């Protein structure tokens, strides 16, 4: 009971840290839940753009804006030129299109008005550029044949109405799956931080020379003491894991409690065991309590940045991903990404089990290394 009480005291004293990491995962998941498109049909991406019409809403500029509205989301940024420039830099809008004064007059008279596009050169802005060029080309073709702006606008609209037939090969709800996998991926950071920080603090307190000496000379059975310590750590880690699973149900939706969701949950349970072993391993290395915050921050941030927790693995350089194979977080994130994409979990079960086995291997490795180091230290 003494051990349990000490454990609870450390948790109470550091409740702020636990709340902080929980808040981080909530903010991140809430930010990710914006796209709630739960469909299995193809939906074209619509880039966010801003259109400045200097031609005073002429028929052709209105037609142009209407066509852009079909293919993009029109946004209006208030606050002047600087606010618009900021919005472009921060990708709030992917393009700014300026329709010049006299646009309609120029088109009708066969001239080429200079429509301006400003963008950060992303794929979304390239898409907008293609859309703009398509419309302008059609306008110019019809302007050669007709002189009435209404007719030109209508003809251009009709000519560009045709869409290619698109079908999706997957029957998987990829939007929901991405939401679930990004929650579980980000939860890795919070799980690591909450578990490793508290357990390292507790274990390094118990391992500090004075406390250790007092424990050794006390009447407490050493085996019982170790058992209590192990049970406390296990129940704390399990409680944190259960808490994040409940939070997952709230943040990522009902998919968490499907068969595929169960696979995500099992993956996170094995990862939690691995994090527990890592916490034990690092606590044996730490000599003073003050170093816990620094070391744990470096370990958790390092694992998160390199293994695809903060930045999706597909955006990481290949050499970083190769190096990340040496970290357990990589295998956890890799398994989550695999679960979000695989068509049939039953067909690809080997992949899932291999990743789980590697995680289990890391758990054994860290636990064994921790036992060896603490054994050596005790003999010293």
């Amino acid at each position, binding site marked *: 009971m003494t051990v349990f009480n000490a454990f609870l005291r450390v948790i109470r004293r550091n409740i702020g840290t636990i709340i902080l990491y929980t808040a981080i995962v909530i903010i991140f998941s809430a930010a990710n839940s914006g796209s709630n498109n739960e469909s299995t049909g193809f939906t*074209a*991406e619509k880039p966010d753009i801003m259109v400045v019409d200097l031609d005073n809403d002429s028929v052709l500029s209105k037609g142009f804006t209407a066509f852009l509205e079909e293919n993009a989301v029109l946004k209006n940024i208030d606050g002047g030129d600087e606010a618009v420039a900021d919005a*472009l830099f921060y990708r709030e809008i992917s393009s700014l299109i300026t329709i010049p004064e006299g646009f309609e007059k120029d088109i009708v008279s066969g001239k080429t008005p200079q429509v301006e596009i400003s963008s950060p050169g*992303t794929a979304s802005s390239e*898409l907008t550029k293609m859309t703009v060029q398509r419309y302008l*080309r059609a306008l110019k073709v019809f302007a050669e044949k007709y002189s009435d702006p209404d007719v030109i606008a209508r003809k251009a609209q009709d000519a560009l109405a045709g869409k290619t037939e698109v*079908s*999706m090969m997957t029957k998987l709800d*990829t939007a929901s799956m991405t939401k679930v996998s990004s929650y579980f991926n980000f939860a890795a950071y919070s799980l690591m931080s909450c578990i490793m920080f508290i357990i390292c603090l507790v274990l390094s307190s118990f391992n500090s020379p004075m406390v250790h000496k007092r424990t050794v000379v006390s009447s407490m059975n050493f085996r019982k003491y170790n058992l209590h310590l192990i049970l406390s750590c296990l129940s704390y880690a399990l409680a944190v894991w259960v808490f994040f699973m409940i939070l997952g149900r709230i943040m990522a939706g009902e998919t968490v409690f499907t068969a595929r969701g169960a696979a995500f949950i099992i993956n996170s349970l094995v990862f939690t065991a691995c994090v527990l072993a890592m916490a034990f391993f690092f606590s044996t290395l730490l000599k003073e309590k003050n170093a816990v915050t620094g070391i744990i921050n470096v370990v958790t941030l390092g694992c998160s*940045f390199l293994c695809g927790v903060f930045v999706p693995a597909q955006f990481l350089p290949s050499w970083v991903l190769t190096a990340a194979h040496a970290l357990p977080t990589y295998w956890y994130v890799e398994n989550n990404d695999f679960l979000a994409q695989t068509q049939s979990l039953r067909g690809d079960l080997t992949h899932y089990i291999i990743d789980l086995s590697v995680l289990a291997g890391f758990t054994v490795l860290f636990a064994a290394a921790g036992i060896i180091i603490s054994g050596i230290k005790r003999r010293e």
Partner: protein
Amino acid sequence: MFLHNYKYSLRLMLGNRQLVFWTLAFPLIMALLFNMAFSNIEKSEKLDPIPIAVVDDSSFRSNMIYSETLKTLGEGDDRVFDISYTDEEKAKTMLSAGEITGYVRFAGGEPKITVMSDGIKETVMCCVFDEIGNESKLITNSGMEEIARQLQSGNKDIDYKAVFTAEAEKVMGTDTGLKDTSPGNMSFVMIEYYSLIAMACMYSGLLSMTLMNYNLANVSPVGKRCTVSPARRGSRLLGSLSASFTVQFFGLLILYLLLLFVVRADFGTKLPQIILLSLLGSLAGLTLGVAVAVLVRINENAKLTVLISAVMAGCFFSGMMGITMKNIIDKNVPVLNRINPVAMITDGLYSLYYYESGERFIIDAVSLAVFSAVMLLISFTGLRRQQYDSL
């Protein structure tokens, strides 16, 4: 006395491993982690050639418009697609394995696209096929209208192929007059490095706070001894702050060297303004540390937690944990970043990089100076005529 205190303050700071870690090592570690995580992110936002497969059967080969256009779109350095011509089964396998974005097969002269999911590459692929379809329709319609016109004007000897070729050239060769006016410096990952510099500046508060704790009688035994000594308080504090500023200056210098020569971050060309902003930022950090030490009457470790949490919260609102956050706060709660020194430093560096104009930078620099003055004023008010009945 000043030099004596300066020397011992330096020794105290450099001997404190926790302090050295947070102020010198942690920003360097973060810079390296940022570099590893973000070095590819902007490349992946660009539109590289999209890998697609085309089902190469008789239906495709007989469709001259699509086969010729796709051939052109798959050639050269500025190609739109990386095309694999294959059969449908192989195309399906490639799509399942994630080797291609989608595949296209032709039925009844029309393309049918199959993709795995929604996404920007899939949308671009569809958009290109829409464009080919629309333009082929445009050429056909214009050609038909031209033929009708010629027939109406009495021309019976029409060269149909020539009419359609002329229309195709007219449509494809149309100059749209679209002018690209994109600004030059658009690398938004730079915000991460700017907020990192800002964090390093504000962490100088840890240095000044630790040294202040050695000067405060109600915090440490050293503080009690210093307070009862005949040394002037002003001279002691000046020595401590100067030593903090020195350590901070060298810490920032190392960070800048790492960012410039290893990470290759872009700070623009205005070096004097960057140095001025960093010095003002460090001053803001130091004065914040003094204020926390004087005003927050809790134990040393709790003060450390308060300061680190305040700086990290400032970093969060200025975009370190999500680049767009700074813009969201600037737009929705502008007052928050007006009083947030981390945002002032980040915004100052951003304005030098993106706008290269002075006005916004001057506002940020003046705000930092005002912030430092306010912190100092508050601290001096708290420090003046301190008396203790018992300790």
